[in-house]
C-alpha cells in the first residue's frame, strides 16, 4: 500500500472517534441520538480529506502516520472541548479550519523549506517580538499570573508563544547546522569541563538570554522549560556532547531556584506542587487547581467515569491547562495512556523523519520540532500529574486555544515537508 493510502485509512479511526464521541455527548445530554453528531463527524472527515488530498498532491512521500495521528488527537480534542463547553468547541472548530488553511499554505509556500534559512534572523526577531507582545500595554493580558495572551479586537485572544517555539527551532536548526562542527572541534576543557567556544556559542547564548529575560518578564515558566529543553535537545543532537547539556541543565536549575524564591507567582507554583494536599495552601488557592486535578484523576480509576460524567466546574481551566485531568477522569488510566501513546508515536515519527533526512538542517529541524512538541506534552501533563510543578501550556491539538491549534498545524506541515524530502526516492 502506498504511503498516502495508508494515511487515508489512518483517518478512518479519527472520523469514527469524532462521530462516536459526539454521539456519546449528545446521548448523555438529551438521551436522544441527534443527527448533528453525524454531521459533525462528516464535516470533520471532509476537512481531513481535503488536507489529505493536498498532502497527496504536494508531498507524496511524506510520513503516512503523522497526519492521521494529528487528526485523531484533534478530533478527540474537539469532542472533549465540546463536552466541556459547546460555544468554545465551535470556536475550536473554526480554529481547526484556520489551522488547516495555514497548514496547506505552509506546505505550498515552503515546498522547499530550506529557504527558511535565509530568513533565520528575521524569524528569530519576530519570534522574540511575539514573546514580548503580551507584556505590551493595550493588547497584553495577564492570565493566572503569567503574561501569555494578546487580545485582538473582536474578542479573540491569542497565545503568541506557540508560534515563537517554531521560529526559535527554525533558527536554532539553521544556526547549529553552520556551527556544530566548530563547536565540537573548538571545544576546550577548562577545569575538567568541556566548554564550547564562545565565538560560536555566543549568539545562541545571547538569543537565549533574551528569550529567558522575556520569559522572566512574562513569568511563563512552562514555555521557558519547553524552549530551554528544545535548545538543549538540539544542542545535544548537533554536537553529541552530553557535557553541554549537563551545564545547561545546571544553569537552568540555578535559574529556576532564583525564580522560585524571587517571583511570588513561581514560588506559589512550587509550593502547590510540593504540598498539594496541605489544607491551608488548598484553601488559600495555591494548590487548589493541582489538588482538584489529582482528585479528578483519582475518581477516574482504570476505566474512567464515562464521557460527560466529570464535574468540570471543580477544576479551574478544565478546557485548557487541566484538560488531561478531565480526560483521565472520564476515560480512566487506559484512555489517558492511549492519548499519551498517540503523542509518543507522533514524536517517534518526527524523529524518524529527522534520522532519514539527508542534510543537517532538515535533521535538526525535524528533531527540534519533535522535541519541542514532546516537551510541551510533558510540561503540561507532568504538571497536571504532579511530576513537575504545574505551568500553563496547552496540550497540543486537544486543549482549547486558537494559537495552539494553528501553530501546531504549522509544526505538522514542517515535519511533513521534512519527511517528504527525506523519503523521496533518490534519482539515479
Amino acid at each position, binding site marked *: 500500500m502506498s504511503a498516502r493510502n495508508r494515511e487515508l485509512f489512518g483517518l478512518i479511526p479519527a472520523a469514527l472517534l469524532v462521530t462516536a464521541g459526539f454521539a*456519546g455527548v449528545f*446521548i*448523555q445530554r438529551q*438521551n436522544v441520538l441527534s443527527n448533528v453528531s453525524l454531521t459533525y463527524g462528516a464535516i470533520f472527515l471532509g476537512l481531513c480529506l481535503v488536507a489529505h488530498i493536498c498532502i497527496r498532491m504536494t508531498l507524496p512521500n511524506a510520513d503516512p502516520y503523522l497526519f492521521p495521528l494529528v487528526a485523531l488527537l484533534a478530533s478527540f480534542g474537539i469532542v472533549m472541548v465540546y463536552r466541556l463547553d459547546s460555544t468554545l468547541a465551535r470556536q475550536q472548530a473554526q480554529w481547526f479550519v484556520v489551522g488547516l488553511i495555514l497548514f496547506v499554505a505552509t506546505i505550498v509556500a515552503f515546498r522547499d523549506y530550506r529557504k527558511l534559512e535565509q530568513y533565520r534572523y528575521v524569524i528569530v526577531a519576530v519570534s522574540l517580538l511575539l514573546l514580548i507582545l503580551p507584556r505590551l500595554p493595550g493588547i497584553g493580558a495577564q492570565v493566572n499570573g503569567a503574561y501569555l495572551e494578546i487580545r485582538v479586537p473582536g474578542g479573540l485572544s491569542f497565545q503568541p508563544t506557540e508560534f515563537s517555539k517554531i521560529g526559535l527551532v527554525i533558527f536554532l536548526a539553521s544556526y547549529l547546522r553552520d556551527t556544530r562542527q566548530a563547536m565540537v572541534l573548538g571545544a576546550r576543557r577548562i577545569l575538567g569541563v568541556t566548554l564550547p567556544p564562545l565565538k560560536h556559542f555566543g549568539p545562541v547564548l545571547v538569543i537565549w538570554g533574551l528569550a529567558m529575560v522575556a520569559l522572566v518578564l512574562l513569568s511563563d515558566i512552562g514555555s521557558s522549560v519547553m524552549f530551554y529543553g528544545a535548545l538543549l*535537545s538540539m544542542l*545535544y*543532537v*548537533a554536537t*553529541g556532547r552530553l557535557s553541554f547539556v549537563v551545564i545547561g541543565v545546571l544553569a537552568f536549575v540555578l535559574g529556576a531556584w532564583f525564580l522560585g524564591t524571587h517571583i511570588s507567582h513561581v514560588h506559589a507554583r512550587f509550593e502547590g506542587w510540593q504540598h498539594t*494536599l496541605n*489544607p491551608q495552601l*488548598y484553601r488559600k488557592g495555591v494548590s487548589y487547581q493541582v*489538588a*482538584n486535578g*489529582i*482528585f*479528578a*484523576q*483519582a*475518581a*477516574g*480509576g*482504570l*476505566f*474512567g*467515569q*464515562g*464521557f*460527560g*460524567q466529570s*464535574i468540570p466546574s*471543580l477544576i479551574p481551566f478544565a478546557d485548557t491547562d487541566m484538560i488531561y485531568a478531565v480526560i*483521565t477522569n472520564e*476515560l*480512566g*488510566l487506559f484512555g*489517558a*495512556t492511549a492519548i*499519551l501513546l498517540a*503523542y*509518543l508515536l507522533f*514524536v*517517534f515519527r518526527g*524523529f524518524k523523519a*529527522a*534520522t532519514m533526512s539527508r542534510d*543537517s538542517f532538515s*535533521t*535538526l529541524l525535524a*528533531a527540534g520540532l519533535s*522535541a519541542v512538541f*514532546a516537551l510541551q*506534552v*510533558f510540561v503540561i*501533563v*507532568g504538571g497536571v*500529574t*504532579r*511530576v513537575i510543578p504545574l505551568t500553563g501550556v496547552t496540550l497540543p491539538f486537544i486543549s482549547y486555544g486558537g494559537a495552539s491549534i494553528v501553530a501546531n498545524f504549522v509544526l505538522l506541515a514542517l515535519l511533513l515537508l521534512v519527511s517528504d524530502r527525506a523519503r523521496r526516492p533518490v534519482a539515479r
Partner: protein
Amino acid sequence: MNSQIVKLFGFFVVLFALLIIWTTRWTVIDASALNANPLNSRTVILQARIKRGRILADNGAVLAKSVPKPGRQWSRAYPQGPLYAQSVGYWTGENGNAAGLEVSDNKYLSVTQTGLNSVFGPLGGNQTVGNDVYTTLDPKAQQVAQQGLAGRGGSVVALDPRTGAVLAMYSNPTYNPSHPNAPCNNSCQVDRATQGRYPPGSTFKVVTTTAAINSGKFTPNSVINGDSPKLISGVPLQNDYNQSFGPITFTKALTDSVNTVYAQVAQDVGRPTMTDYMKRFGFYSTPPLDLPSGEVFRSVVVGPHGKELAPASPNEDIGRIGIGQGGLDVTPLQMAMVASAVANGGKLMTPHLTDRVVNQTGQTIQTIQPTVYSNVMTPATASQITQMMRDVVDEGTGTPAQLGSGIPFAGKTGTASIGPTGSNETVPWFIGFAPANNPKVAVAVMIEKSNGGFGGQVAAPIAKNVVQTLLSEGK
C-alpha cells in the same frame, strides 16, 4: 547525529513513562485515599448524585430512603426516627460523617460503577440508582425493646440462633439519624449493644458451665460445696446475702446463681481451658457483625488499672471471672452470642443485620447465607446446659421471665456490681433463649445502671416481652 536522536527519543520515552506511572499513581495506587480526602468535594458531589437504595426492616418497613434535593442531588431521610439509629446509622454525604449499615452496606446502596460498565453504562440514562437492603430487624420487637427499657440506659439484642440473624438490636439512649451530630446527653451516639462494655455478672456463668461440662471436668450432677464466704485469690468472696448453701449439685448452683461454687469451678477448670472457651464464644475478638469495624467492640478482661489484659494473662483472677466479675468487660451483643451458641446445639452462627439485597426491578441479587462462626461445644453439652438454664427460669432467679402457655424458656440472670466498694449500683442482665426445646430466639438484655436492682427483676421481664413478641411474629 542519528545516534543522538535515538538517545534523545529514549529520553522522551522515559519522560512519558513517568507521566504514565504518575497517572497510575493517582488513578489506581492512591485513588481510594484521594477519594476519601476531606478536601475532595468531588466524591461528595458524586455520592449525592446517586440515589442511594433504601434500607428496610424484615417486613418491608422503610428505615432509610433517599429524597430529592435541588441540583440533581439526593439526601437521606429516616422515617422511623431514632428507633433504628444504632444499626441503620446515618449518611450525611460528608466524607467520613456516616455510620452503621449506611457505611457497611454502602457497596450495595450506592452501586458505584466499575469496569467497562462505566464507559457504556452512563449512555443508558444519567441517574445512578442504588439497590435496596433488607435487614433482619423486626419492627415490633424493636418497639417492645424500646418500651421495655423505658428511658433507662441499656440495650436489647435478639438473635435467631439458627441463622445468626439479628432480630432486634436497640440501645438507649438513642439519637435522631437525621441530625446525627446534634449534641445530646449520656453519650447517645454510643451503641450500647456493640460498643458498651459492662461486667456481665452471673450471665457469664453460662460460659463457665460450658467450659466445665464440655471439658469433662464436671457434670450437671457434680456436687460442690456452696458455703459463703470463700477465699478466692486470697480475698473472701460471698454469695448474695452471704447465704451458705452447703454441698449442692452443679445444676442447683446455676439455678440459685451460687458465686462461691462457680468461682471454685472456674479455678478447677483452670485459666487455659476457661480462656479457650471464652475464645470459642467470641470473646477477645471483634464480633463479626456487618457493621463498620470501628463500631463493634470486642469483649475483654480489664486489669485493675483499666488496661486490657492479654488472653490467659497471669493477672486474671479466674475465680472472679468465672462469676462474671474480675474485670470482665463485655457487650450485650457478645452475651446474646453466648445464649445463641447454647441454643443452637453448640454451633455459634455469624451474627448479621443484612438479610438480602434487592435491585430496582425487585430481583434479589444477593442473600446473606448463614455461616458457622465457631463450634463452641458438643450438642450433648448444649442440651445439658439448656436443661440447667430451664431450671433457672422455672424455679430459680429467672422466674420473672416465664413465658407461660407451656413455652419453655432457658435463661440466666446476672447482677454485676459496679461503682466503688459498698455502693449499691448494679448492672442487671438477662440472657436466654426460647422455646428451650426448639430455640428460635436468643436474647440478651442489659440495664447499664440500677440502684440495687437484680437481673431477674429488672432485665428478665424485658427479655420475656421481646421474646414473646418475636415468637408471636412467627419467628
